[in-house]
């Protein structure tokens, strides 16, 4: 500040008026006049605005990168701020080569991107580490880069880099970038934002996540998922995402399997009844198969099953990559299950038929069609439920209700139905069948032997896969179950030490007009005052 006398002001005001109305170089004249008055001032103080990074953001971004997720930052901040934020949240490391695109015309942008892309491609053989490339592009160049003829170029360059930071980006450009990647790449996109300016981006992506909080609820309202803090994204993706993928895969594959197994046995029976369409099982039993007796296992698997618990998934972000690669649900897996269902149906039907064949019971009486049908049906049901038991990773009490409970339900249902249905005239097939099923030794032998024979292959193969064709998640399951301590802490500490050394090296370089958060360092100064609390009146 400086006190100006009335006199000085009048003189200066006249010059200022003249400068503001001049026809040539007005801006420069105004600047010159301003210079005249802005001197000999006393410094009163300094203000600072802190836009704090949320808790846990650097760790989250680092973990997501470990999980094989590529991260792009689209921000409205200026370039230096954005770069510093990138360093702060460990999106880019100190040793990254930054490709900074600040071109102002269409052709310059195109040339720049092409040049950089060629340079990278040529240098591909010699030591260019794709793990340390980052692209920084500002809003103006991004406008050009999103145009039809450059967008492919831009996208190729961007996907080669480990991280992309777009600064000075408008909300429309955010959505356009998302749509560009969606259109031209087969990847799944997740967009996360917390303000109203992120809404278009959130809605354009495959999965939109809104952070509810400081900047209001706009983003949260328009998103597929709303979380309260950025760091919860880690649990959302690594734990719930992995669980959801695994559960859905298993549930879908199992549902196909159980139905194929039952209905293909019907088909085999058609070979023995001149394809007349007679069912080997009673018709309501078939209906209730899907409704009552095998409805609960997929449900239990889809709701409760956890192939790894939350702690393990959190600790080993690489487990997330299995979902990215489609390890659990792909064409091969589907046909594997379908063929398995065929194989089971062949054993159940043909071996079951031959076992029952001459139909004579221990008292010499003949069993007939429906005793045969109920035996095969129960064998199929038992096999299918045993398969559900085999694929379940986690047995909660609800799983016990679902899987053995379904079989118990069938054994309870059968006598009740055999009693009531003939009286109600819905189906007379089961009339009198109970005394020929429960005391029938052949029935019990069949439903013990057939499922065990079917499951032998499944059990042995699963064991073989785990022991000798091991996948990483098998190892993690064993680590989890046997509580094996992880030797990696030493690795983590080592990495931290390396990071600190590089930090010190970096501090020697000039930083620009912004501070960025580091571990330790300036935080103590910045946080000396709690700015959310009203300043006490007085001094």
């Amino acid at each position, binding site marked *: 500040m400086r006190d100006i006398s009335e006199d000085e002001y009048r003189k200066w005001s006249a010059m200022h008026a003249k400068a503001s109305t001049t026809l040539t170089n007005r801006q420069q004249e105004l600047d010159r006049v301003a210079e005249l008055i802005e001197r000999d001032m006393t410094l009163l103080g300094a203000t600072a605005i802190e836009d704090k990074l949320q808790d846990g953001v650097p760790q989250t971004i680092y973990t997501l990168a470990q999980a094989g997720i590529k991260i792009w930052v689209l921000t409205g901040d200026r370039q230096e701020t954005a770069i510093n934020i990138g360093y702060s949240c460990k999106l880019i490391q100190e040793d990254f080569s930054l490709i900074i695109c600040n071109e102002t015309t269409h052709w310059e942008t195109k040339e720049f991107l092409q040049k950089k892309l060629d340079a990278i491609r040529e240098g591909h053989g010699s030591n260019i580490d794709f793990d340390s490339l980052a692209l920084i592009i500002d809003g103006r160049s991004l406008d050009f880069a999103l145009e039809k003829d450059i967008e492919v170029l831009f996208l190729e360059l961007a996907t080669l880099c480990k991280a992309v930071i777009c600064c000075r980006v408008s909300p429309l450009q955010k959505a356009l970038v998302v749509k560009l990647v969606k259109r031209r790449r087969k990847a799944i996109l997740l967009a996360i934002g917390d303000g109203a300016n992120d809404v278009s981006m959130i809605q354009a992506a495959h999965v939109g996540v809104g952070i509810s909080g400081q900047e209001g609820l706009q983003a949260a309202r328009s998103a597929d998922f709303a979380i309260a803090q950025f760091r919860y994204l880690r649990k959302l993706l690594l734990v719930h995402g992995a669980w959801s993928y695994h559960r859905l895969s298993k549930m879908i594959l199992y549902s196909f399997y159980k139905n194929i197994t039952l209905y293909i046995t019907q088909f085999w029976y058609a070979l023995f009844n001149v394809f007349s369409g007679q069912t080997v099982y009673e018709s309501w039993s078939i209906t209730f198969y899907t409704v009552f007796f095998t409805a609960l296992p997929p449900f239990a698997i889809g709701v409760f099953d956890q192939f790894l618990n939350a702690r393990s998934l959190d600790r080993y972000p690489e487990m997330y990559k299995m979902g990215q690669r489609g390890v659990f649900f792909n064409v091969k897996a589907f046909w594997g299950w379908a063929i398995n269902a065929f194989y089971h149906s062949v054993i159940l039907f043909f071996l079951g038929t031959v076992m029952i064949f001459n*139909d004579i019971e221990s008292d010499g009486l003949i069993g007939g069609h429906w005793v045969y049908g109920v035996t095969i049906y129960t064998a199929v049901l038992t096999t299918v439920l045993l398969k559900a038991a085999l694929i379940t990773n*986690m047995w909660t009490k609800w799983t016990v209700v679902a899987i053995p409970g379904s079989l118990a339900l069938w054994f309870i249902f059968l006598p009740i139905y055999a009693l009531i249905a003939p009286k109600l005239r819905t189906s007379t097939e089961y009339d009198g069948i109970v005394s020929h099923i429960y005391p029938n030794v052949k029935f019990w032998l069949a439903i013990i032997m057939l499922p065990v024979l079917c499951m032998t292959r499944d059990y042995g193969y699963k064991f073989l896969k785990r022991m*000798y064709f091991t996948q990483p998640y098998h190892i993690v399951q064993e680590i989890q179950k046997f509580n094996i301590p992880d030797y990696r802490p030493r690795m983590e500490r080592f990495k931290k030490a390396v990071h600190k050394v590089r930090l010190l090296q970096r501090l020697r370089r000039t930083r620009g007009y912004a501070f960025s958060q580091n571990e330790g360092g300036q935080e103590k100064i910045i946080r000396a005052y709690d700015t959310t609390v009203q300043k006490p009146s007085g001094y």
Partner: protein
Amino acid sequence: MAGTSAGEPKSKRPSNTAFKQQRLRAWQPLLTPKSVLPTFFIIGIIFAPIGGWLLWASDRVNELRIDYTNCDRLGTAFVTLDSNDYEYHLHGINSNSITKPKQRYDSEERVCTISFNLPKDLEPDVFLYYRLTNFYQNHRRYTKSFDVDQLKGKTRSASDLNNGDCSPLDSHSENGGPKKPYYPCGLIANSIFNDTIRQPVLTNPSGNQNTVTYKMSETGIAWTADKKRVNPTGYKPSDVFPPPNWREKYPNGYPDPIPDLGKDEHFLVWMRTAGLPTFRKLYMKNTQDTMASGFYQIDIVMNYDTRSFGGTKSIVISTTSFIGGRNPVLGIAFIVVGGLCVLLGCIFAIRHFYRPRRLGDHTYLSWNQQVASGLADNSAASATARNAQPASGTQGLLRQRP
């Protein structure tokens, strides 16, 4: 946020129960050698002997079958059957040493006489079945072709039965007269097996009699529940026609009163349809007397034509065991399962002891190996990860997947 006038706003925080936070107490089974190998061996050790026992039990069942489809083409002299037409499974007796059965046919009485040798006594219970082949009682239209109410005794009119399950054998009008229902209607009842198999007669008994009849009863051969399904009917004989194939038995319609079909156990046995095109049905049984060894003759009145549909008919005399008739497949299946499990157990056990894989070993995690090798390149590392060479057995399969 400030409270509303109603007081403290409800917290939106989800409840921290084990169910909602997916922290339920659970058992996580893993297939490790310690659990799988014993399982295989235990199953093998349990199933194989059971199979052996079942096989032994099935072997003790005595059964003989004689086909008499083409008996009505023979003359009055006994003709020896060739080996396709009979089958002997008698415990402890070599089938080749048994005298071959013979047949002859009396075309006036339409009676086929089968003469066969029973080399050993059959302990009670002894059952006699008739066996049909190529007869599809499991055809869809056939299986539902009967009327429950009519069998229960209700007098259903021709219009009631019209287009019901029994069609086309629901009703009939003779010589332009009124339509009367068939009793019993439907294809199953119509196609009933109507050969009469007479009791077996021992032609060379010890002692001073010429022949001894082995009395077998034709009651107690149907399910108890089946007997309750058929009640005496309320029809008058003039109200109904017998089914077409029953005309020979009732040429002038039914006698008065119409016979109670619930007492005709052959009818009940026939109505309980079989599931496969080759089936047996119980004809008569003897639960008290031993069937003594010797030469037997059985007379059968040949009414039933199986040649028209390419089928065969045979009689089967059989005893039973606790698992029913003779069926070695049950025992063999158990033995196969037991053997398979033991075999798999052995293979896995050998592999496990020869080249075991340590469980939960971090070095198998491929990203650990990558990091280890990457750090080694930087030559700033101390060896924190274990030796990057995986233990034998995983052969780089893990390393290919980052």
